């Protein structure tokens, strides 16, 4: 490059001759040169920026286009990679503890119509109604002949129905593949499973989402492709569940009850082996929730988990166990049962008059309200409250059902001494039967807190200690005596040493204002075998009445207990328990001297 000299001789000489300052020429030239340098520098930088901009633009356009393609393309299974060999259903199966299927998927088809492709609209509507009698022909004809370009006709159809629709031969009737949720056992364990429905729908596929029960609780897990279609194993035993529901249904009909529930739970692991609530429904065709009337009358209502009832005398064992645990009393302590017990304006009475004094064991066996209330007075409201909180009566049970989180026991707003006295015999605190099962499990397993679970587990729960081993053992002896010599004499099942406590609570009126005289909730909370408990069984009947005698009988001893006994007789062999001879008390050796 030829550089222009800063001081060109010709111009300098000329300037000198004309008396001008030659330095001005140099400065001028330096300025020009700097301008040139600046211009070239700028154009080079601009060029570089342009190249970078083009590169970035290219990158972003590529990325955008790719994203668009990915979001608009159909998902394709990877063709050649080894990881892509798993072809799994959209939703994992649910199985019982022995691997029997409780819920699975079935491929079916949905039926939709594109009226603008249809040939003979009236005839198609007519034929469709012949295949699906629940469709409305006028409505269909209107939809087909109207402006609509697309409409769903049926969400799930069987292969036979599909063939029949094919035979209509109309090109505007189309099928889309659908995965549907199938509950092969029908109504069995309906409340546990809940049900499933379709979420977002498309012609080619539809989301299957859980709407209730474990299906909703574990919706994310069941749909997670990372699980690789691994089935969800519940703690339920299908056979035992079937037997439980069968016996419970029979008992409910026999005792003229309007509803019933039963819970069978392992006392060490907290696994719910069977849980039934009647009336029930078919999860394959889940009814719509009732919009009017009492929600608890709907078959969708899970009495075992959602039903909050005053559970009556079944609570007495907690007062007795706590009294023994605190050292206030033991099984042979005499308790004043002189009635009626007055507290302010309030009177506590017993079903019968049990005389002036009973031992604590007899208070439980005979189910004396007065005796238990006196125990509660001795324990005090604060300690009773803490004990019941430890047993889990203050919070939802924590079972893996979506409905359970709403079932928080109803506690008295102010825990006065009177509340403590009434709660000790099961009035003034409403809890679900499952809460009661958890409480009894703690008594049965030697005093450790149990959280009920629906998932199969292998190890016992090592919960916090609620009461000492010794007082739990004493309480179990009392429960056994309730069956051998007390209110639950119908509960005796030879070989299984049933122990338990009955509870008959008057139903509160829905609109407030006291209790019904002729409507009760009868509960039998039992453990078996009482000397080495493995299971706790709660049976609750809603408004039972037993009419074989001259007077209608409603107490739990006449209603819930026989049902529970029949249930234990049926399910204990299924659980693999062979009848055992109860280890009896050794005949006392009397010391004599002569």
């Amino acid at each position: 490059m030829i550089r222009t000299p800063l001081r060109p001789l010709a111009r300098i000489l000329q300037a000198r001759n004309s008396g001008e300052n030659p330095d001005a020429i140099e400065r001028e030239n330096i300025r020009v040169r700097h301008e040139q340098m600046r211009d070239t520098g700028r154009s080079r930088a601009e060029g570089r920026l342009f190249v970078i901009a083009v590169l970035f633009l290219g990158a972003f356009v590529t990325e955008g286009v790719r994203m668009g393609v990915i979001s608009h393309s159909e998902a394709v299974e990877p063709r050649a990679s080894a990881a892509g060999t798993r072809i799994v259903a959209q939703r994992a199966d649910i199985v019982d503890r022995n691997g029997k299927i409780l819920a699975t998927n079935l491929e079916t088809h949905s039926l939709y119509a594109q009226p603008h492709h249809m040939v003979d609209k009236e005839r198609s509507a007519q034929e469709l109604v012949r295949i699906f009698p629940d469709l409305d022909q006028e409505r269909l004809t209107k939809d087909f002949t109207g402006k609509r370009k697309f409409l769903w006709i049926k969400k799930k159809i069987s292969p036979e129905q599909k063939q029949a629709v094919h035979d209509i031969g109309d090109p505007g009737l189309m099928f889309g593949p659908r995965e549907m949720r199938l509950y092969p056992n029908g109504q069995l364990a309906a409340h546990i499973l809940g049900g499933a429905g379709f979420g977002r729908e498309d012609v080619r596929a539809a989301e299957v989402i859980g709407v209730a029960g474990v299906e909703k609780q574990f919706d994310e897990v069941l749909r997670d492709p990372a699980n690789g279609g691994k089935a969800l194993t519940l703690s339920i035993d299908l056979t035992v569940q079937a037997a439980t529901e069968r016996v419970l249904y029979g008992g409910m009909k026999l005792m003229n009850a309007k509803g019933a529930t039963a819970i069978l739970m392992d006392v060490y692991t907290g696994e719910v082996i069977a849980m039934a609530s009647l009336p029930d429904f078919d999860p394959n065709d889940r009814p719509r929730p009732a919009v009017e009337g009492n929600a608890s009358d709907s078959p969708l209502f899970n009495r075992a988990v959602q039903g909050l009832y005053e559970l009556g005398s079944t609570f007495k064992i907690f007062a007795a166990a706590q009294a023994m645990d605190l050292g206030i009393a033991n099984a042979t302590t005499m308790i004043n049962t002189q009635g009626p017990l007055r507290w302010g304006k309030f009177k506590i009475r017993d079903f019968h008059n049990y005389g002036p004094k009973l031992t604590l064991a007899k208070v439980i066996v005979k189910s004396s309200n007065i005796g238990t209330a006196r125990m509660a007075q001795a324990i005090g409201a604060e300690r009773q409250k803490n004990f019941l909180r430890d047993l889990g009566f203050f919070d939802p049970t924590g079972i893996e059902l979506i409905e359970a989180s709403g079932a928080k026991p109803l506690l008295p707003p102010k825990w006065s001494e009177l509340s403590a006295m009434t709660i000790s015999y099961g009035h003034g605190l409403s809890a679900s039967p499952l809460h009661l099962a958890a409480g009894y499990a703690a008594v049965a397993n030697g005093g450790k807190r149990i959280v009920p679970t629906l998932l199969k587990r292998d190890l016992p729960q090592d919960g916090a200690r609620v009461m000492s081993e010794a007082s739990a053992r004493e309480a179990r002896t009392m429960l056994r005596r309730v069956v051998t010599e007390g209110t639950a004499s119908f509960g005796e099942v030879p070989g299984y040493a049933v122990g338990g406590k009955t509870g008959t609570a008057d139903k509160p009126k829905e609109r407030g204002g006291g209790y019904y005289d002729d409507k009760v909730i009868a509960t039998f909370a039992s453990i078996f075998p009482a000397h080495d408990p493995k299971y706790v069984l709660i049976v609750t009947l809603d408004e039972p009445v037993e009419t074989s005698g001259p007077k209608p009988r409603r107490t739990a001893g006449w209603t819930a207990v026989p049902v529970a006994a029949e249930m234990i007789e049926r399910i204990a062999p299924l659980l693999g328990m062979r009848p055992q001879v109860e280890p009896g008390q050794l005949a006392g050796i009397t010391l004599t001297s002569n």
Partner: protein
Amino acid sequence: MRSLVFVVTALAVIGLAVWAYRENYRTQHVINETESLQGQIGAARSRLAVLRAEWAYQNRPSRLRDLAEINYDSLQLLPLRPDQFGKVDQVAFPPTKKVDFDGIVDAAGTEDYP
């Protein structure tokens, strides 16, 4: 020397091209095969799922109960009761088979040992 290098290079290019061509077709063939196998696996799995569902449906407790009731005459099936448990020593040993000594041939000394 130079032409030799050209010829060798050209031959190498042709050889590599042939190899790449064949590899390409072999890969495509394998991919197709994999795809059809995947398809078969998928079909087998869905068939299996249907069969499992069918099995569970046919074995649902209510149906088995009804079947046991219908076929009571021939099967005499009743629900399991506690008194049906037994002990091992309640089970009689199967009668020992009587050894039949009839028609014994005295084999001693009939064989020829070398």
